[in-house]
C-alpha cells in the first residue's frame, strides 16, 4: 500500500504499470429464455502502460466486460468462466469480500458511465472523497485531500473550490474530471473509464480526452476506455478492440485497425461514422440492427446477419480469433492471414 505522503507523481515513476490479461471470459445473464451470454469467450490483453479502447454498440457486451474487470457483475448477470489476471493482484475473479472491496479503488479505479450522475447530490465532493478514504482505511486524510487537490489542479480546476462544491454546482465536464480524480486518488494503477465522454460537448470532450491521455502517461497507468464512439477512442487509445454481440471481433493497434480494418463489422462501422472529410456518397449505415441478448444467434458468427462477406460456414461455425502480426481478427472471410488460407486450400 502506498503511503499518501509521497507525491503521486514520484510514486508513479517508481512503479511499473501492470498488465491485464483477460482469458476466455464468459458472462451470462439470466433471462426468461435461460442464461444468455452477454460476453462470450473473450481474450483480451492490455499491455502495461497502454490505453486500450473497447468500442461497441448497444448490446455488444462492452459495459459487462468493464464490470468484469472489477468482478462487479451484478445479478441477474454471472461470470460463468474465464479469468482476469492483473499484475500484482492475481486473478480478480477469485477475489471475494474484503479483498475484492479493497482492490476496487486501490488497484483498479473505475470512472462510471455518465460520471455526471454517479456523485452523491447531497454531499460535497470533499465529503465524498473523505468517505472514500475512510472506506479504504487511508491513514492520513490530509494527504488524501492534498493529492485530490493536486489532481484536480492538474486537470485545470481550482481544487479547493471543487472539493467544497456540490455536484449540481459543477458542469458536465467538471463532474467527469471529479470522477477521474476519485478513481485515481488512491493510486490505482489500472483505470477503467466507461463512456467517459458521452453527453459532453465537443470541446469539453476534447479536453477530457486530452486529460485522460496526459494523466495516463504521467501516472504510468494501464487504461481501458469503453465507448460507443470510435472517434473518442481513435483520439486517445493505443490499441483498439472492437466488440460485437459479446465477442471481440477485432483487436490491434488503433492506427492499423482504423487504417486497414479487417473485420467486416469494423469496416462497416468506420464507413458509418459521420466525418468532416471524405466522400459523402461512400458513407453508409450498416444494414440491420445491433443484436440484443435475445436475438443473438445460438451458433455461427454473431455478425453474419449484417455481414456483406457472409459465407455458408458463418451459419454454423463461430469464427475463432486468429492473431497475426499483432492483429487479432475473428472472421471466416478475412480473419486468416493469406498464407494460412492458401495452405489450407492446398490440403
Amino acid at each position: 500500500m502506498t503511503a499518501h505522503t509521497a507525491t503521486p507523481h514520484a510514486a508513479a515513476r517508481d512503479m511499473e504499470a501492470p498488465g491485464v490479461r483477460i482469458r476466455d471470459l464468459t458472462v451470462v445473464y439470466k433471462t426468461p429464455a435461460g442464461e444468455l451470454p452477454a460476453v462470450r469467450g473473450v481474450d483480451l490483453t492490455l499491455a502495461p502502460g497502454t490505453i486500450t479502447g473497447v468500442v461497441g454498440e448497444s448490446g455488444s457486451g462492452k459495459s459487462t466486460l468493464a464490470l468484469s474487470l472489477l468482478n462487479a457483475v451484478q445479478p441477474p448477470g454471472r461470470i460463468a468462466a474465464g479469468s482476469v489476471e492483473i499484475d500484482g493482484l492475481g486473478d480478480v475473479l477469485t477475489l471475494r469480500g474484503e479483498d475484492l472491496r479493497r482492490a476496487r479503488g486501490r488497484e483498479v479505479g473505475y470512472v462510471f458511465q455518465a460520471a455526471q450522475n454517479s456523485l452523491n447530490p447531497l454531499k460535497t465532493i470533499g465529503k465524498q472523497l473523505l468517505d472514500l478514504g475512510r472506506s479504504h482505511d487511508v491513514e492520513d486524510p490530509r494527504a488524501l485531500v492534498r493529492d485530490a487537490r493536486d489532481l484536480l489542479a492538474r486537470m485545470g480546476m481550482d481544487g479547493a473550490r471543487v472539493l467544497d462544491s456540490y455536484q449540481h454546482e459543477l458542469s458536465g465536464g467538471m463532474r467527469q474530471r471529479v470522477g477521474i480524480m476519485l478513481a485515481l486518488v488512491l493510486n490505482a494503477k489500472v483505470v477503467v473509464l466507461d463512456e467517459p465522454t458521452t453527453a459532453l460537448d465537443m470541446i469539453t470532450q476534447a479536453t477530457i480526452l486530452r486529460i485522460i491521455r496526459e494523466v495516463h502517461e504521467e501516472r504510468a497507468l494501464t487504461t481501458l476506455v469503453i465507448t460507443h464512439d470510435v472517434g473518442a477512442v481513435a483520439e486517445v487509445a493505443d490499441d483498439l478492440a472492437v466488440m460485437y454481440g459479446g465477442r471481440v471481433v477485432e483487436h490491434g493497434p488503433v492506427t492499423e485497425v482504423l487504417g486497414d480494418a479487417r473485420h467486416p463489422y469494423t469496416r462497416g462501422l468506420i464507413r458509418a461514422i459521420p466525418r468532416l472529410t471524405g466522400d459523402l456518397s461512400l458513407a453508409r449505415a450498416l444494414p440491420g440492427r445491433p443484436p440484443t441478448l435475445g436475438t443473438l444467434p445460438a451458433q455461427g458468427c454473431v455478425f453474419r446477419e449484417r455481414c456483406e462477406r457472409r459465407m455458408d460456414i458463418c451459419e454454423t461455425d463461430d469464427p475463432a480469433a486468429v492473431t497475426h502480426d499483432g492483429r487479432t481478427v475473428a472472421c471466416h472471410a478475412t480473419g486468416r492471414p493469406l498464407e494460412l488460407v492458401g495452405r489450407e486450400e492446398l490440403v
Partner: protein
Amino acid sequence: MTVIVNPAGPPAAPPAETTRATLRRNFWRGVWRVLRRKPSRMAGVVIVVLFALMGVAGPLLYPAQLPRDDNALYAPPSLAHPFGTDFEGTDVLALVITGARYVLLTGLATAVITVALGTVIGLFAGFHRGRWDTVLMRLTDMNLAIPGLPLLLVLSTVWKFESPLEMGLVLGVLGWGGIARAVRSQTLSLRERGFIEAARGLGLPTRHIVGRELLPSMAPYIAMNMLIAVTGAVYAQVGLFFLGVLPFESNNWGVMLNLAVFNGGALTTPAALPYLMAPLIAILLLTLGIVLIVDAMDEIFNPRLREE
C-alpha cells in the same frame, strides 16, 4: 431510400377494429401471465375472489335471520361451528360471511370515490397548472387537514349510515386528498416527457392527451392506490363500528368485534376468543390478498414487463 429494415414479420396490419380487439385479448392474456409468475399473486387472487364471492353470494346462503341456538352460547369451535358461536348461539362463520357484503361494498365505494376524485383533481391541477393548480391544491390541503375520525363521530350522531354506499361516500369524500397530491406530481413530471410534448406539437386535443397518453402511464399507480384505498376503508368502517358510534343495523365485522370485546369480554374470557378472532382473521386475510395483488400492478400496466 426505402430499405426495409426488418422484412421478416407478419403481413400488413389488419383493420383498426380487429387490432383493438386483439390488443384487449393480449392485455388479458398478459395479466394472466403476470399473475401466474408468482404463486403469491395467485394466492392473492384466490383470496380476493373468495371474499368477492362472499360479498355477492354470502347473504344468499343463509336465511335472513340467522338461526340461534340458546343451548350453545359461546360454543367452542366444532365441525358444525368452525369458529364457534356468539352470545346468542349464532354461528360465527355465518356472521363473518354474511357480514362481508357491507364491509366490501363500503370498501369498494370508498376506493372508487377517492380514486375518481383524486385522479380528476390531481390531473387537472397538474396538467393546467397556474391558477387552477393553486385553487385545487388549496382544496386538497383542506381535505388533508380534515380530522376524519372526529368528524365521523359527529356525523354519526345525525346520520345512521344504513347503506354501505352512504358510508363509502363519506369515507371517499374525506379521503381523496393524498391521491390528488400524488397524481398531480406524477402529472407534472409526465407532462415534460417527450411523448406528451409530441402529442401537443401534433395538435392532439387535450381530451386525448389526458385520457390516452397520461392516464395509461399512471394506471399502475392509480390501480395500486385503489386497492390500498379498499383496505383503508375496511379499517376505517370496522373501527367505527367497533367503537360503537354507529347503530348496529346489520351484520358487520366491526359489530362482531365490538360485541366480542365489550359484551363477550373476549379479552379476558377465552370462550369468546373465537368470536373475536374470526372477523380479525377475515380483515387480515383480505388485506393480505390485496397486498399480494398490488405487487403485480407494475407489471400488468407496463407492456414491457407484461410481455416478457
